[in-house]
């Protein structure tokens, strides 16, 4: 990040450690915040249009290309939507393998964000490389944790980036039990490392910044949610995934190429680890619940800066869940359930590391996709990020502009925004 003052405008360019390209523009009038706009100038990529006319079974692999960090989320939302359309229910070992694959993605994504992207903010380092100079052992632990997540993904999906083994109905190939067994020892280490991570990040300095969010996440009758559940909120929403578009809407805003999502009639809402944790605390395994309690974290947490602790707790969950699946795994008789395409509409939602990822497909009689709709978690959080900044900036107007920019960036990184599979992201302009 670098900053420069041009007349009454402060411009800070090139924030790394977030995903995609955009800018934050703050306008101040008379010492008060007059507007906050998160400008997303990352060009739209038209994936929904690109899917039209393609065979239904191409959707998992095509949509996986949307993101290099959370391709499994795209695959899982796609296969669940399509299976819903075709009346297919996947259960048993295949369902377990899907959860295992998703756990791998959570571990690698959360480890990357906690250790390499967000921790430097709290400890006052410019980047993880600068942090590594003083805390090499911690960075090594984060890298090893991430690697184990990647190994889980590779074991199931052929490769860690843009996996190729997922299909509608299951997998092209499932591993033998002997192929997964070696992961157990690594996952035990990872679970311990994740517990250490919770202790470490819970000691960071957190600003007093509780917000009255409407938290939205999947809620499953018995599991911490990954691929299935109803859509619930902290303010009483409880709808089926198929009712998503009745409850939520997307809006164009002039300053952004990304749509902003709202809860109809209620406005901004918050998806992601903080929401999942608040709504599903009772679904966490005891080891993760205990770790959270020891860290002083309960389901009532509404401070987005503490999302780094929640990510660490969710990493404990993901390691524990992966270990459970690896330890009890018996291969299915067949790697996939038969799928017979038909003209239908199907919806699916899963919990990407950054929050709910919604897919809907309308399939024609020949099995071709006639319409696709994809709502990623970051689009759902954009309005909430802006609202956070409306609240945060007035508290820090006395800071030098460069320091103010750092506070804003840290607040944006609370959401681990994934604006695209691109590179550098943010310019901050303060207009007075």
């Amino acid at each position, binding site marked *: 990040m670098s900053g420069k003052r041009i007349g009454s405008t402060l411009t800070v360019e090139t924030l*790394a*450690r977030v995903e995609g390209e955009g800018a934050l523009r703050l306008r101040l009038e008379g010492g008060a915040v007059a507007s906050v706009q998160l400008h997303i100038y990352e060009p739209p990529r038209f994936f929904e249009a690109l899917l039209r006319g393609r065979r239904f079974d191409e959707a998992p692999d095509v949509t996986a290309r949307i993101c*290099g*960090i959370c391709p499994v989320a795209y695959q899982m939302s796609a296969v669940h939507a399509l299976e819903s359309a075709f009346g297919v229910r996947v259960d048993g070992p295949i369902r377990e393998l899907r959860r295992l694959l998703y756990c791998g993605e959570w571990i690698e994504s959360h480890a990357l964000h906690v250790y390499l992207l967000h921790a430097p903010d709290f400890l006052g380092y410019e980047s993880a*490389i600068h942090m590594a100079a003083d805390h090499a052992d911690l960075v090594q632990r984060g*890298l090893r944790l991430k690697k184990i997540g990647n190994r889980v993904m590779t074991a199931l999906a052929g490769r860690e980036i843009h996996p190729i083994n997922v299909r509608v109905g299951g997998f092209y190939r499932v591993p033998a039990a002997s192929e997964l067994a070696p992961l157990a020892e690594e996952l035990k280490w990872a679970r311990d490392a994740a517990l250490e991570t919770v202790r470490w990040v819970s000691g960071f300095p957190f600003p007093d910044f509780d917000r009255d969010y409407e938290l939205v996440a999947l809620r499953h009758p018995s599991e911490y949610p990954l691929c299935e559940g109803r859509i619930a909120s902290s303010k009483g929403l409880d709808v089926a995934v198929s009712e998503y578009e009745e409850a939520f809407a997307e809006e164009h805003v002039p300053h952004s190429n990304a749509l902003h999502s709202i809860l109809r009639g209620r406005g901004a809402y918050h998806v992601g680890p903080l929401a999942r944790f608040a709504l599903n605390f009772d679904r966490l395994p005891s080891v993760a619940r205990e770790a959270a309690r020891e860290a002083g974290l309960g389901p009532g947490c509404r401070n987005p800066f503490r999302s780094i602790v929640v990510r660490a707790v969710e990493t404990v969950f993901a390691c524990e869940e992966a270990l459970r699946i690896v330890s009890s795994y018996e291969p299915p008789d067949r790697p996939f359930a038969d799928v017979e395409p038909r003209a239908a509409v199907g919806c699916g939602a899963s919990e990407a590391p950054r929050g709910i990822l919604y897919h809907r497909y309308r399939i024609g009689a020949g099995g071709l996709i006639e319409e696709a709709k994809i709502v990623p978690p970051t689009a759902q959080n954009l309005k909430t990020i802006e609202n956070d900044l409306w609240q945060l900036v007035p508290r820090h107007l006395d800071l030098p502009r460069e320091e103010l920019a750092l506070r804003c960036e840290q607040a944006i990184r609370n959401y681990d925004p994934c604006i695209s599979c691109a590179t550098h992201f943010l310019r901050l302009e303060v207009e007075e």
Partner: protein
Amino acid sequence: MRGTLVIGIGNRDRSDDAAGLVAARRIRQKHPRDVLVLEQDGHAAALLEAWRDARTVLVVDAASGAGPAGTVRRFDAHRERLPAGLLHASTHSWGIAEAVEMARVLGQLPPTVVVYAVEGSSFGHGRRLTPEVEKAVEDVVRRILEEVSCPSPASP
């Protein structure tokens, strides 16, 4: 300690961005002795893992924004810092430059790390290199084959 590693980096579907991958494949086809050739997408964590314990690492990647198409730059990571904005960056901005600097800080930088950056001009969808980059890739392949057959002493 393992021997020599050649790592080609890029995206095969984005025209000149595939320069590193094409170079890696052509080097592999020449079967240089005691050389392991890998193809990667350029994420820092994967690079750190790949070159762990290697003695000599040669990386090829596409670059942009620093000269005419086909320009080849050679960086010795022990002698200079890689310009972070030059090379293809991976998701969340963790690419080759970050991998080199992280390895340096952690004391895990292999004794020799050389990065060839090939300036591209087209990064749109497609599987063809532009003629300038095609020529530059041939040049890089030749130079790397020379380097691995007559390795220079490890950098201090």
